[in-house]
């Protein structure tokens, strides 16, 4: 039965040839490690978000008078298993950002952004930015005290720019304060504008990976890429191991681990991403004692608090971001092995430590 169906498809789209090249003959270099599965994991995490998000969309009402009760009363209390999808969505959003960051860090450390993979890196950084925008637009939607005030703080950060700052902040908020207009725009952003943008970037990213071939890490002996490359050649590894079942199994294993962690948090740490302020409806007249953005924005937030001049604070962050974005064009050295590049290692470790320190500092 199955064979007949496959044959039917094969006559129409050449399925057998696709399976042959993409699955059976697709070989992965021998010296890859578990971190190579992180990209796939990020895609899975994103699919989970999309899926749970659509489920939540069925009952959510994006109006300030009804948003909180549609989440808290309807989804969390009244609808069966609504709590499951809401908690998966919230925990999942934090895990997604964590996975994306880990993926970028490992790609960076293994030098897999170098020629000819600069465009892949570029797409990746843009996707990270989009993911953070996803996070911060979604943060407002439950319309609780935490959402409202964290959004107030974050949308005020552009005002650090001299002339264009205020207009930017006003466009973001739809006015001078966070109101129902802000909610509508963030909802449109989160549900309708960002998804197709993100999907386009993912599509391009996956296409590029397939087209250029997997990059071998520089840590092993086999299959070092020869540099510099002056003409197109898809990298292939005839002596590598087949994608299916070996690498595929690694990916499945990571996916199970991801879900196990997600449900571990939901079972044993249910208040981790649900502090008390989440359960209080937004009150524009009462500012809670501690307003902080989400953890992934704490380091930039803390950095802005430290730098005396607001303008420099935000410009510095933008400069860092742009450097991050065009890094493959700045770092054109042939050496991929980070263990042989002490300066880069030092700078990286310093920035990582600074980021973590700022994060913890921003929490207090």
């Amino acid at each position, binding site marked *: 039965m199955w064979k007949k169906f496959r044959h039917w498809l094969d006559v129409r789209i050449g399925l057998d040839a696709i399976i042959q090249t993409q699955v059976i003959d697709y070989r992965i270099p021998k010296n890859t490690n578990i971190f190579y599965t992180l990209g796939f994991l990020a895609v899975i995490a994103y699919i989970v978000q999309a899926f749970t998000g659509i489920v939540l969309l069925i009952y959510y009402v994006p109006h300030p008078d009804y948003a909180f009760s549609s989440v808290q009363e309807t989804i969390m209390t009244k609808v069966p298993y609504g709590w499951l999808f809401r908690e998966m969505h919230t925990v999942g959003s934090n895990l997604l950002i964590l996975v994306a960051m880990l993926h970028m860090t490992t790609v960076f450390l293994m030098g897999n952004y170098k020629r000819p993979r600069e465009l892949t890196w570029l797409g990746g950084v843009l996707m990270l930015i989009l993911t953070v925008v996803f996070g911060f637009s979604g943060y407002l939607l439950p319309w609780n005290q935490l959402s409202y005030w964290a959004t107030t703080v974050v949308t005020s950060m552009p005002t650090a720019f001299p002339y264009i700052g205020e207009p930017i902040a006003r466009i973001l908020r739809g006015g001078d304060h966070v109101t129902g207009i802000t909610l509508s725009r963030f909802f449109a952003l989160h549900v309708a504008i960002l998804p197709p943008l993100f999907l386009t970037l993912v599509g391009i990213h996956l296409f590029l990976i397939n087209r250029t071939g997997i990059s071998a890490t520089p840590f092993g002996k086999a299959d070092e890429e020869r540099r510099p490359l002056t003409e197109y050649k898809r990298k292939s590894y005839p002596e590598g191991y087949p994608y299916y079942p*070996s690498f595929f199994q690694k990916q499945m294993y990571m996916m199970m681990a991801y879900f196990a962690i997600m449900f571990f948090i939901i079972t044993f740490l249910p208040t981790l991403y649900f502090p008390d302020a989440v359960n209080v409806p937004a009150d524009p007249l009462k500012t809670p004692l501690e307003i902080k953005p989400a953890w992934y924005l704490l380091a930039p937030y803390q950095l802005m608090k430290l730098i005396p001049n607001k303008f420099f604070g935000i410009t510095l962050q933008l400069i860092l971001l742009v450097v991050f974005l065009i890094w493959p064009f700045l770092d054109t050295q042939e050496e991929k092995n980070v263990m042989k590049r002490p300066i880069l290692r030092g700078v990286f470790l310093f920035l990582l430590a600074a980021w973590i320190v700022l994060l913890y500092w921003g929490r207090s």
Partner: protein
Amino acid sequence: MRYLIISALMLFMLPSWGTAGYKQEFESEFMTKTWAGVQVEENVCISCHASDRMKPEYREITEAWQASWHAQNSISCENCHGGDSKDAALAMSRERGFVGSPQPKNVPEFCGKCHIAIVTNFLESGHGKALMSGHKAPNCVTCHGSHNIQKASISIISEQLCTKCHTYERAKVMKQALFLTENKIEELEKNLDALKREGIYPVTDERNLFSTQAEFRALFHTVDVSLVKDRTDEFTSRLDKIDNNIQTTDRELKFRKNFAAFLMLTFAGMGIVVFLLNQSKE
């Protein structure tokens, strides 16, 4: 070249850290702006009465009010005293409804502008009747204070307070009659709060609890012990209904935890199996 850029960036960041101390400026610049429109509205009553030119006794009033339950619920001067809280010239004008501070006899009417049910019962009580006929009697302020009014609780009925006019015996009997019901209400309040922390939003139960509590307290103001005792059963059954709902919700929460744990175990199990499959091939 690239290392020059990196080092320049590092040098840039270091002195910025040294000049930390701008947290305050950041917070005062960002946090107290009028984000939410009416957040820090100017109340002229408070501006005058809290200023240095005011007599110390008057300044104490604003401090006392700031600490009160009224203040936490955004009830301020003009809600009780009338007047215009936005216009300094007309702040205490009769035209704007300013009534000043009430005489002891008029205090129930003053507070009864909002607390209708309580005043109705109070005026029918021994305390109320004594007050209205000019005898030495308590009014609202006697037990609750005037500006630093806190959330009412059974501890207001105390030996110290009630023996100002008569023996504590009667008050003690009343306190005993109220005790169990008040305790139950407090317990239910705590349980509802705990539920809210878990993300459940028990709106109907919260409202029922509040209205039961309000009715019970209004009843107390008649200071009629037999009436309270007679109706205690009625109140207890209302509270029991709320308790049942809370228990049902507790069971639901337990089910949720178990369900999530079950899913965690299936995924962990699958992870282990895939791992083993992985190993056995190679």
